[in-house]
């Protein structure tokens, strides 16, 4: 069974990278550029998991995560937030916002895949 993953990042280079590396592991990947687009996207299609950057213009990852987790229709979607900021405070805030996992950029693809597998199996 294919697992669907939605990547949310305003940085094209990063989206592309995550897409390629998840593709290798046979995930079905979709990508969007912003939190708003992500919310639009999940209205019509529910992914198994969302991987989102925290720092994005307009709507940041925390906010996106809160909205997803507060909607009964979407709250089962696992969310992994990542950021380049190295402060512990971000990790705390990520979990407060309801994220299921948190990663610091840069991370190897295998780490991301490991987290994804862990989350999707526990479901």
């Amino acid at each position: 069974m294919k697992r669907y993953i939605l990547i949310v990042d305003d940085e094209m280079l990063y989206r592309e990278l995550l897409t390629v590396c998840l593709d290798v592991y046979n995930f079905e990947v979709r990508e969007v550029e912003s939190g708003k687009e992500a919310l639009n996207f999940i209205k019509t299609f529910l992914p198994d998991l969302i991987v989102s950057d925290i720092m994005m213009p307009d709507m940041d990852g925390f906010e996106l995560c809160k909205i997803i987790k507060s909607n009964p229709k979407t709250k089962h979607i696992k969310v992994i937030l990542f950021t380049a900021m190295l402060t512990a405070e971000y990790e705390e805030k990520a979990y407060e916002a309801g994220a299921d996992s948190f990663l610091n950029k840069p991370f190897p693809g295998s780490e991301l895949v490991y987290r994804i597998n862990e989350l999707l199996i526990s479901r």
Partner: protein
Amino acid sequence: MRIGEILKILDELKAIFQNEKFPQFVSSIDILIEVMGQIVIEQLSYHVGMSYFFNIYELLEKGLDSFFKDKNSFDFFYNKIERLSLVLGIGTDVAKVIEEAPKEDEIIQEIPENIMEDISLLADFITEAGDNLDSAEAKILHLEKKPNNQEYLDAVFRIMHTLKGSSGFFNLSAMSKLAHNTEDILSQIRIKKLKISPEILEVVLKSIDTLRKLLSQLKDIMYNNPTKPIKIGIIYDLQERCIKGEIVSKETHKIGEILVATGQITQEQLEEALEQQQISKKNIDEEKTTKEQLLDVIKIPTHKLNQLIEFLDELVVSVSMKRFSQLDKITGKVHDWILSIKMFPINNVFSKLYRHIRDISSKCDKQINFIVEGGETLVDKTIIDGIYAPLMHLIRNAIDHGIENVEARKILNKNISGTIKVSASRLGDIVILQVSDDGKGLHREAIIAKAIEKEMLKETKKSFDQLSDQEVFEFIFKPGFSTAKGVTDISGRGVGMDVVKRDVEALRGKVIIESKKDKGTNFTIKLPLSTVEGLVVRIGASRFVIPILDINQIITPKKENLLDVCDEKESCFILAGEVIPIIPLYKFYQINPDVSDPTKAIIIVINFREKKFGLMVDEFLRRQQIVIRDLDIYFNKLPGISGMTILGDGRVGWIIDPSSLINLN
């Protein structure tokens, strides 16, 4: 691990794969090297770059694993790697150019035998050639702005001609050939066979860089330091193509990539780029040492030396004639003269900045007009060495976050190209450096909000309007204040601003920010020269020196002007309607004072930001020119003290740094 070491390992890996004849692996390694290179030249941000690096490396690893199980299964991974490399815009023709480069493209020079006996000749040559290359580089950068300036062209031509001759004299064939080729390119331009274009100037600049690398390699060999081969074949190639008129813009845009891909980056260049990447103290220190090595020999204009000798002659005469009254005057002159010798024009720093800014702005989609003023200002060598990093940081911030992109500027009715101005001037004992931009400016409210969020400001009911702009902007210098969030939303500033402040303070300087929303930001850095005018004061048996520039006035308050604040008796006084807190230095440094009553003591009123503070001392002795000496590390924790000096009577005078003193209080 350093990027240099990583590159070395990659090179080794590549060699192994080459020997085993696995071309796919070789090209994957090339891509990894290229990614590293792009991080170094900042085409890729560190995070994105490293993420790519990790993932490509992982793919390669996986590919190798499956390759050993089944010979053909590497293709799958290679396709992925190639896709990523395409996203990064790494062209495949890079490899082709490398192949075309001559075989002996790497050299380690040798010190010619005929010079072995008189090594100092070679040392002089290295220093002189280095200086000449610096000035050639500056002129090339000018040429870029004013391509019609024949004078600059001629000057560079002459420099190359001299270099060709002198390196030929020392039998340094590689250097001679490079200089010769550069000379050829320039002469083609002179006879109008070639037209000046950024691409051609780029080749000339690369040639200058390579010549510099060759010089530093020579130096390493001279001092028996370990050295690395320098790739020069590719530069010859570029030069020759340039002379033949084959350099067209499309190809030359990739010079940077080619250089990186071939591992052309030397340790110095790497360090320079690294320093930009993450301005860390360590790197700055390293840079300092390389600079100091380069300046082992200082060129002094003959007239200055002659004057110095004359002074010394006078000195000898007056001693022998026992005219001691004149001694003081003459030693004073000698002192001033020697100080003037160790001063350098700040252009040394500016021209370097210029070069980097040119590189950065060509990489971002903003149009930037970079203006430099007052480059001829003379400053201490310590300032030259220490100011580059903070200035660079401020400028990069201005480019990255201050200047809006073209669309935003159009909407705001601003000139589409942003202006960044760096200027230097002298005001008495201090050097004033300014970095200003006409970008979006700092956002006062957002900084306050951020400061509250970070708990640097206590949220109270009273409005924050009372805070002065300077007090608000000061927050961006606090360590940990800036976050990427801050970069995009708040101010567009603040990345590592604490480092800027720290570096400037290490030079005993101050940073002042002025900013208007949508109008721009102006950073003023004030740096004292190593000699300053100071006021010598006494508390008990101790002597302190307060820099004159910080002093507002000196006063003994009247009884009726004293105020009790917060249960502390007579802890403030009123001066022209302003309440000024008194800082009794004797309490702070636990000295037995002669006077502890403010109405009998001397209060030195100092300016700090937009407020005044009063330092209470026993008496003031005199005004004096002082030479600041750094505190030994045993003393470096002394609060409020920035250095020391030996006073006229042989006593030690502690130099007070008002800003840190007030922060402590």
